[in-house]
């Protein structure tokens, strides 16, 4: 398998830091995309601002690198103007969960026919490691030097409860599972949300005693728990909304519904 079947190799090496999980998400996305046999000429990529949003610029396809937090809104317009185009959104936790929070909720509520990949590295990497809406409680960032007093958003739960058809979460320590859920999601309609927890050794890792990519990857593996295991343990969906209850992030397919998508609804 060649590594650059959907990417612009003329832009390599890419700009991401050593060990950055975004690169792993790229590899997984490419594999799933190829497995699915989708056409690059009929797929468009939209992203916002932040490290993960730079991903759109590396795909050898039509790509729109937009403003901070608004990728889903741009993607909505693009999709409605060309309804048979597959529109993929690359975004991050700051872009989607903080500045773009409302667009995220509304796009899920509409069940807009978009495929959304959120690379969640739990902090603002591009600007140097500030607290984001998914930074864990008590964790250190440049803007929470005494530990984060706030609690994190569970982006996947937000997506699921807002109405997204398909919601799955894995980490970059689970590349094969990521490929599987991306592939599965690409074949569905409505809003499909893939949350990929990713290592940010340069900032989140460095401030939180996991500065090496290997340490950060281990942290991801150790701090995640599969939804099926949660059930075995007698934990409910409510338990894992507060990540502090289990101390772990739930991974797996969190929602797989068949609600009427936006396009289906307007084309009835």
């Amino acid at each position, binding site marked *: *398998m*060649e*590594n*650059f079947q959907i*990417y612009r190799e003329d832009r*390599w*090496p*890419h700009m*991401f*830091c*050593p*060990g*950055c*999980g*975004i*690169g*792993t998400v*790229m*590899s*997984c996305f490419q*594999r799933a995309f190829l497995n699915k046999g989708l056409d690059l000429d009929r797929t468009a990529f939209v992203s916002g601002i932040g490290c993960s949003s730079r991903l759109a610029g590396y795909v050898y396809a039509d790509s729109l690198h937009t403003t901070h937090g608004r990728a889903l809104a741009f993607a909505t317009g693009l999709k409605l103007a060309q309804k048979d185009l597959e529109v993929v959104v690359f975004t991050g936790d700051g872009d989607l969960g903080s500045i773009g929070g409302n667009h995220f909720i509304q796009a899920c509520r509409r069940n807009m026919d978009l495929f959304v990949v959120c690379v969640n590295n739990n902090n603002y990497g591009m600007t140097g490691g500030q607290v984001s809406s998914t930074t864990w409680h008590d964790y250190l960032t440049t803007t929470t030097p005494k530990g984060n007093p706030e609690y994190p958003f569970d982006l996947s739960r937000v997506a699921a409860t807002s109405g997204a058809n398909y919601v799955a979460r894995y980490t*970059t*320590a689970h*590349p*094969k599972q990521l*490929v599987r859920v991306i592939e599965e999601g690409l074949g569905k309609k409505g809003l499909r949300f893939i949350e990929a927890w990713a290592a940010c*050794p340069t900032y989140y890792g460095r401030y939180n005693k996991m500065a*090496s*990519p*290997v340490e950060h*990857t*281990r942290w991801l593996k150790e701090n995640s728990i599969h939804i099926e295991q949660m059930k075995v343990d007698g934990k409910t969906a409510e338990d894992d909304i507060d990540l502090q209850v289990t101390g772990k992030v739930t991974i797996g397919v969190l929602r797989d519904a068949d609600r009427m998508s936006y396009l289906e609804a307007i084309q009835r």
Partner: protein
Amino acid sequence: MKIINKDYCKGCQICVEVCPKKVYSEGTEISDMGYLVPLVTNYDKCIDHNQIKKGKKPICELCILSCPDQAIIDDSYGD
């Protein structure tokens, strides 16, 4: 053979970490980009290498998928 592209590898060592068969080991040489590029020292143990030898499809690929820099390829893969 697994080949690590020295122009792309940023020395994160994730391949060394994730390989269940310890195919990779920490490198000794600094690349032109200034990173410690891992070495492929145990290719005989590679799961996919053995799969391909048996005429089967690769099933592991953890290193290729995990590599954040798209730096690893296996030149024994057919397509």
